[in-house]
């Protein structure tokens, strides 16, 4: 790997880091497989591992900052975190953050119980659909897909996807609208019980979100990401997370 840029950290202000040499990554720790608590009790996840590698290459120290999703904008604006990097959907938030180029394709999908008989988005008519509060899926269903949402019996929100799946299991909701990789992760324990509708709600992209105007830092991270993809680091990371629903085909940078 190339760590030739590490000297740039000596001039901290040009990095755009709040605390020189420390890269504070804000993320939702309840959002596997992108950021979560691993079996060993420490933070892990696809996005966090990418962030760690970026730090390695830039000579920064990574700082994991699990945040309350409600406070993410305040955390970023106030400089408590340097970026939000956590399966963070660009679409619908284009103007709110300074984004890297999209690094990953994502789909918003609908998960139903296999026995439910629901096979298409049209079948969701009259059904109860649940999604996470302040999630990309919710933004979508209140925006571009509002017409579809209007056919639902109701659209519910809940703080954690985890709980949403409990609701789905016990039958109090009929479907969960969710990011594809998260859906894969959630159903990985009993894949036969659930079906991801082949018809997706949308195709969208993840990016790393920085405070508006912080292009310096964005550029550094983006350059490093491209490097990491080019030298194969990303590919092997994708393979590591393959059983949790991530494939290198979705990765967009440096190909």
């Amino acid at each position, binding site marked *: 790997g190339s760590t030739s840029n590490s000297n740039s950290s000596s001039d901290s202000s040009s990095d755009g880091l709040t605390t020189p040499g420390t890269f504070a990554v804000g993320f939702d720790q309840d959002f596997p497989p992108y950021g979560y608590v691993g079996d060993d009790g420490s933070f892990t996840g696809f996005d966090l591992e990418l962030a760690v590698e970026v730090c390695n290459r830039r000579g920064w120290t990574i700082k994991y900052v699990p945040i309350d999703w409600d406070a993410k904008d305040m955390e970023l604006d106030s400089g408590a975190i340097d970026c939000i990097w956590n399966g963070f959907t660009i679409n619908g938030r284009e103007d709110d953050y300074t984004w890297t180029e999209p690094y990953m394709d994502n789909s918003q999908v609908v998960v139903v119980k296999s026995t439910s008989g629901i096979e298409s988005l049209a079948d969701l008519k009259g059904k109860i659909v649940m999604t996470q*509060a302040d999630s990309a899926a919710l933004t979508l269903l209140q925006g571009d897909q509002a017409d579809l949402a209007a056919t639902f019996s109701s659209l519910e*929100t809940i703080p954690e996807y985890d709980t949403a799946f409990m609701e789905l299991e016990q*039958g109090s*909701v009929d479907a969960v609208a969710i990011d594809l990789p998260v859906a894969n992760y959630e159903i990985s324990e009993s894949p036969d019980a659930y079906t991801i509708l082949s018809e997706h709600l949308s195709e969208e992209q993840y990016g790393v979100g920085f405070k508006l105007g912080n292009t310096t830092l964005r550029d550094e991270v983006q350059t490093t990401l491209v490097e990491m993809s080019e030298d194969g680091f990303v590919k092997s990371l994708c393979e590591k997370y393959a059983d949790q629903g991530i494939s290198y085909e979705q990765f967009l940078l440096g190909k």
Partner: protein
Amino acid sequence: MTTQTMLSMLGQGMLVSLQIFFWTLVGSLPLGMLVAFGRLSRFKPLTWLVRAYISIMRGTPLMLQLFVVYFGPYYLLGLETGSNYRFTATLIAFILNYAAYFAEIYRSGIESIPHGQREAANVLGYSRSQTFIKIILPQVIKRVTPAITNEVITLVKDTSLAFAIGVTEMFTQAKAIAASQHSMEAFVLAAAFYYVFNAIVAFAMERIEKRMAYYHE
């Protein structure tokens, strides 16, 4: 989003908060009295049971109690509850939780009434139920009102916990707006709502206290 839309969203949430608030009180104020009776009963096993109930309700987070009530029937008993159960579960958990707090307040109130009151009623021939309803209860109510007020004010804020099982009350609405608008405005409005709601509750309780202030001791 216009301020009007925001207010109307918050208003909807407020309505849910108010419903939780109202039904919780309607359910837990009387239930708490029954629990207090159990706590004061001379039948020891009942007393222990009630003590355990009170200690669990007060010793564990209401959020977990919401989970247990909402998901328990399916995960523990295999029952399908249907989606209407969401609000019902909220009310059940809130009522059970608050009944425990109220029970302890009632109990201390009942215990604080001088024994002479019961004796006087006894000598005058009042039955046990007459003594309780006519003599003891009104005095208990007067004494416990300040403590009840405290709990009621806590309840106003606790309604926001209902979102743990997906009930979108006011604070959740405020959070949703704040997130989509990238502004604290909704939070500030929510705080103002709470503050006003609390002020109204405090005012109402003060009126009730004043009402009962026609006598003292």
